[in-house]
């Protein structure tokens, strides 16, 4: 039994020796994400109260006792709201990153492969969106769409499309010139085959790192939108919304209402950033360091 556990552990430690600090950064990030994903998947095992219950305890109770992180002005348990709130922020930010990566990769492949006018036009539009402040675009979209989980997801997703587009387009341009692509064309492979079988698999590897860092950023944008009062109806539990609510009690000294939701947003973003940083160093040591 001890041997059974020992082997994976030794392999683990060997990886640590091989890659150094980067391996531990990656593992730290993965561990943070794992804990919060667990929170989101099994909230009932961790939350002692219903997140909406206005009878969880006294009003604005200090952290401690039955209320790990205190209670808010509506007598709701802050810790329970944190646990349930993880579902919203994780769901929105990961889904937004999935949507923008799919759209961005598709147009990036198309633009890089087709070239010509299609490429010119797409690049112009994507570059314009890229330089424009993402948050402002997301604010405008969220304001137009109105509150809703799906709406905020789209508002966040739109602003990251150019990131994937630029990355994939650049790589497609380079890979297009490779000998094996020429060889594929010589044996009569059509454009869809070349794109899917020869170019796409080579492009996808680098987008993994970008995807992870993108989720980290999306987490902060999602919380920013809800902090500003945009994007979600009050019937949803959300860290950014709780932060905005707690802001009203800052002057009277109820520090726990802003400290814990904000700490969670930062920790989750940090988890994804560290995962991304670690992956980047291990997959391609020269990507970040140069």
């Amino acid at each position: 039994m001890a041997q059974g556990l020992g082997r994976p552990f030794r392999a683990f430690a060997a990886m640590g020796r091989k890659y150094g600090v980067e391996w531990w950064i990656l593992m730290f990030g993965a561990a943070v994400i794992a804990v919060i994903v667990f929170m989101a998947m099994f909230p009932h095992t961790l939350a002692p109260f219903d997140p909406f219950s206005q009878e969880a305890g006294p009003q604005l109770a200090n952290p401690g006792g039955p209320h790990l992180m205190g209670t808010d002005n509506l007598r709701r348990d802050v810790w329970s709201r944190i646990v349930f709130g993880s579902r919203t922020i994780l769901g929105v930010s990961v889904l937004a990153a999935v949507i923008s990566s799919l759209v961005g990769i598709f147009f990036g492949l198309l633009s890089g492969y087709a070239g010509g006018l299609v490429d010119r036009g797409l690049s112009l539009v994507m570059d314009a969106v890229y330089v424009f402040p993402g948050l402002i675009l997301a604010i405008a979209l969220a304001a137009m769409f109105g509150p809703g989980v799906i709406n905020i997801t789209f508002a966040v997703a739109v602003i990251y499309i150019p990131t994937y587009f630029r990355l994939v387009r650049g790589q497609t341009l380079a890979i297009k010139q490779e000998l094996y692509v020429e060889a594929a064309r010589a044996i009569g492979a059509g454009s869809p085959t070349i794109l899917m079988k020869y170019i796409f698999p080579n492009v996808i590897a680098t987008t993994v790192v970008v995807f992870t860092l993108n989720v980290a950023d999306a987490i902060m944008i999602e919380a920013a939108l809800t902090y500003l009062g945009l994007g979600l109806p009050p019937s949803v539990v959300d860290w950014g919304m709780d932060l905005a609510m707690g802001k009203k009690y800052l002057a009277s000294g109820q520090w726990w209402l802003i400290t814990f939701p904000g700490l969670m947003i930062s920790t989750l973003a940090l988890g994804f950033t560290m995962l991304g940083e670690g992956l980047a160093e291990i997959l391609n040591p020269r990507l970040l360091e140069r």
Partner: protein
Amino acid sequence: MKNLLRYIIARTLMTIPMVFILLTIIFVVLRLMPGDPVSAMLGGHAPEKVIEQKREELGLNKPITAQYVDYLWQVSHLDLGDSMVLQQKVTVAIREKLPATIELTTFGMIITLFLGVLLGAYAADKRRQAQDSAIRLYGIVIYCIPVYWMGLMLQLLFGIWLDWLPIAGRTGPRIFASDFEYTGFYLFDTLRVHDFEAFRDVLVHLVLPSLTLGLSLSGIFVRLTRANMLDVLKADYILAASARGISHATIVYRHALKNAFIPILTMMGLQVALLMAGAILTETTFSWPGMGRLLLERIYLRDYPTIQGVIIVFALIVAFISLLVDIIYAVVDPRIRY
């Protein structure tokens, strides 16, 4: 010199399509997305006739292409229309709020550059040592702290617990902006009328918001500076300098940093977007009466012309600064002129 002038003109012309596309994107987002501004503003129960009248007034009953042409025509004349809620031209509202945002972002940027560039250069100098790891960790962690939460925590620490600094607004309760307001840049305005008490008050109010913004963006600059410094420190001329016996500190902080600064400058153009986003969030946290507050207040009021106007101004600022950065780049580095 002639080359430089040609480059500047060519680069300026290049911003035209970019601005045009940005304006089009704004139009698409604000006019083509679901949701009718007029019924949203008047509420769902307004009589059909009133809604029709308002739509006519705003030109919203015209075909979308005509609206688009009108919109571009207006913007090209720097006319952003009238507010739908207040009897006020949008340009007047923006003129009133823009200085507050510029003051905040300028000081934020100064703090960011100072912190980020110095820490980044130091980390590169101490590569792979404990200081380097500590600074890199600082960069990552600070990047992951959302600017609005950092603002709240600084408010809690310096405003409530230590009670050192004010946490809201541009002036205290006993200072009246109407006494000195001239350009809207309060630091300048107070000095203009030699009101040093007000100047001190304005400065004190600026500390926490600009520190929040500056700290928050410094993480990115630590990383940029460090990466560029590492490249530069590998260059032959650095080796040559040390062979000549120039002191290590002079090499790193004079020779290397100067050369590393050029790419940092270009990156700054891209960071302007982050600076704007950071400003909007910081303004909300600190009740700072700038463009971000204006945008959000008008979003709650559904004042479409003002929302549109504010976003257009942000787009123009971004386009202008990226133009400016490229021109400075060309002036500083003669290798750039094509």
